[in-house]
């Protein structure tokens, strides 16, 4: 036996059986290395080709110095939210958050950046709201109307969160008094006041910002860079949507138990709107009536319009056609709850990868229903790629792309796998409290991320406005952007009411009216769909 052990045969067997695993290890090592090298190369090639820059210069605006003295006009749902971002929360809000077990909201409030603002005034036609602010915030004085507030030397700037029909009149008066203005969207309620506000901004030294806070959202800033780098090629179709299916989303807000002609300054609420007797529903659910609100076009399409305008900078559409009706809420409302708008840009292009002159023009589609909340995402469709845009951003190469043809052929790019994906939310596990909140969050309208931390984008938008007041830096949603947003919305509303394609005269900067048509009268009218028959 001992001889056998020494024989070459035996030691061969010993090596074969003993070291059988070694070649496997070598093979696996080579396989893993080759595979990961291939993946890395592919990723690098794609990223190099795309050259997307996702970083944003930090908003370094210095908030120190004397506090800016702000007055809030309209202390309802949106107004009280904006005031919280300025650093002022009422005790009743804390109670409500505790009741809803939303400790996260309280924590976020306590940790949010201090914008160094002093809330010195409140103006609300509903006594309960105004008195709550006065009781909660020391140094905050109640003004009976906005004129009184604007005359006060204690106010440097105003935040306007009133119903739509008050946006422009108060903004104009504030600018004339050289008070800085942050006004909620839509910027105006009719065409005439849009020009008047444009004029007022030009003639005022005060800073003017429209409250489209998503301009601060990181994914939109990244999207703008992607468009600039022509990653998508020629974008021929953009599709945005509103899908909501709950009372809050359909503007069926709660009616406050203390609402009465004694607690509400009804005449002041009406302002320039038709004089009608006191009506609680009109007061709290004003978005349902043309006299105070703007329907889906002014209320929600403006969000989508400005989201896309901030990315593409396409400006005013040449033609706007709208359709839809009241199909899901026959509850006395005047504004449609299912609404489609096609905006045509025959001369617009973000660039092309094909021979010059072939590609030009774009349609921007907006489609909305308040009777279903299936999430239809925002998509920008280009010859070379498709972008899906919300708080996250994903890009797919198009199988028919010219730009990526060789990369697709060499299997470096697979059209069904995103070539770029940006998701700052990936590490956030957070509760969103309502369907409407989720709707806004998915669209990137609620919050964004800075240094990996979640921040309310409206806080950054207010900060940008305050920075502009302190240091003269630019704002991202000023009168030009606001003018385009408001006019496009008005074209949508007009088209729906008249039943005709509405045309924009770019040279004269006006909506083309047919002889005898008073567009503002039509826009504010409660008569729907009768114009086409009359004219």
């Amino acid at each position, binding site marked *: 036996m001992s001889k056998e052990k020494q024989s070459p045969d*035996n030691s061969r067997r010993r090596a074969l*059986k003993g070291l059988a695993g070694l070649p496997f290890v070598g093979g696996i090592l080579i396989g893993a290395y080759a595979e990961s090298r291939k993946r890395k190369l592919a990723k690098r090639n794609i990223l190099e080709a795309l050259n997307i820059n996702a970083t944003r210069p930090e908003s370094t605006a210095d908030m120190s110095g004397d506090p800016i003295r702000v007055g809030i006009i309209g202390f309802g749902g949106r107004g009280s939210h904006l005031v919280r971002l300025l650093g002022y929360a009422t005790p009743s809000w804390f109670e409500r958050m505790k009741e809803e077990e939303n400790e996260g909201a309280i924590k976020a409030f306590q940790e949010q950046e201090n914008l160094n603002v002093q809330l010195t005034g409140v103006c609300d036609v509903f006594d309960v709201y105004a008195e709550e602010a006065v009781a909660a915030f020391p140094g905050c004085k109640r003004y009976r109307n906005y004129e009184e507030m604007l005359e006060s030397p204690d106010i440097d700037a105003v935040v306007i969160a009133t119903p739509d029909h008050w946006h422009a009149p108060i903004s104009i008066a504030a600018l004339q008094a050289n008070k800085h203005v942050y006004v909620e969207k839509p910027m105006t309620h009719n065409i005439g006041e849009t020009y008047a506000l444009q004029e007022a901004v030009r003639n005022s030294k005060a800073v003017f910002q429209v409250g489209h806070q998503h301009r601060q959202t990181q994914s939109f800033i990244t999207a703008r860079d992607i468009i600039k780098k022509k990653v998508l090629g020629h974008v021929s179709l953009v599709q945005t949507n509103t899908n909501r299916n709950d009372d809050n989303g359909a503007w069926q807000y709660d009616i406050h138990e203390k609402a009465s002609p004694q607690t509400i300054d009804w005449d002041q609420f009406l302002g320039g709107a038709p004089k009608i007797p006191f009506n609680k529903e009109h007061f709290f659910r004003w978005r349902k009536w043309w006299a105070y609100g703007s329907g889906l076009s002014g209320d929600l399409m403006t969000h989508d319009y400005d989201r896309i305008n901030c990315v593409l900078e396409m400006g005013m559409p040449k033609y706007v056609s709208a359709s839809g009706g009241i199909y899901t809420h026959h509850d006395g409302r005047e504004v449609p709850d299912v609404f489609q708008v096609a905006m045509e840009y025959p001369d617009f292009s973000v660039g092309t990868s094909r021979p010059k002159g072939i590609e030009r023009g774009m349609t921007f589609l907006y489609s909305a229903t308040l009777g279903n909340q299936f999430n239809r995402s925002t998509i920008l469709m280009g010859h070379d790629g498709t972008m899906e845009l919300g708080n996250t951003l994903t890009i797919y190469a198009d199988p028919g792309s010219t730009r990526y043809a060789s990369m697709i052929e060499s299997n470096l790019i697979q059209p069904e796998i995103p070539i770029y994906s940006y998701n700052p939310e990936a590490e956030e596990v957070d509760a969103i409290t309502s369907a409407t909140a989720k709707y806004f969050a998915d669209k990137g309208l609620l919050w964004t991320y800075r240094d990996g931390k979640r921040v309310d984008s409206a806080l950054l938008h207010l900060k940008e406005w305050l920075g502009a007041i302190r240091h003269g830096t630019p704002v991202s949603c000023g009168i030009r952007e606001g003018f385009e947003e408001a006019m496009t919305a008005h074209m949508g509303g007009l088209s729906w009411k008249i039943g005709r394609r509405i045309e924009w005269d770019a040279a004269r900067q006006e909506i083309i009216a047919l002889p005898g048509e008073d567009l503002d009268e039509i826009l504010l009218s409660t008569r729907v769909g009768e114009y086409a028959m009359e004219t």
Partner: protein
Amino acid sequence: MQYSKNQLFFLASLRILIGWHFLYEGLIKVFNPGWTSKAYLLSAEGPLSFFFKWLGGSALADAADIITIILLIGIGLALVLGAFEKLAAFAGIALLAMFYLSHPPIPGLENAGPAEGNYFLVNKNLIEMAALGVLAFFPSSHLVGLVYYFKKQDDETVGQHTAG
């Protein structure tokens, strides 16, 4: 432990194949410096998801990455080469149990991870765990593997007989 030729062939094959699976997973992660288990941990579901989510969100996440890689490669090498196979088998069962529990195939869980098949309680992780249990109690590295190679010369005859 004595086996017939066929028994040994399949036992040793099973050991090398499972080792291959572990080793390749570990090496891919080493060669891909961007890899992290965070997203996997944070997407955990089931009764123990709180633990995995906590782990993914804590400072221990980086350590978890390194430990996972070391375990995958260590277990893989031991099984492929044929050494410390019992220890490797138990370590493998423990690691797979973590994977299994973080994304258990329980009906009603929304995203128990992307699956290429359909699973009810039993998935491939669970089956691989059972296979590792077989390896732990039916060792083969004293017949094929480094244990055989380095074993004392006197034992050679035993090895030959059992292998033959």
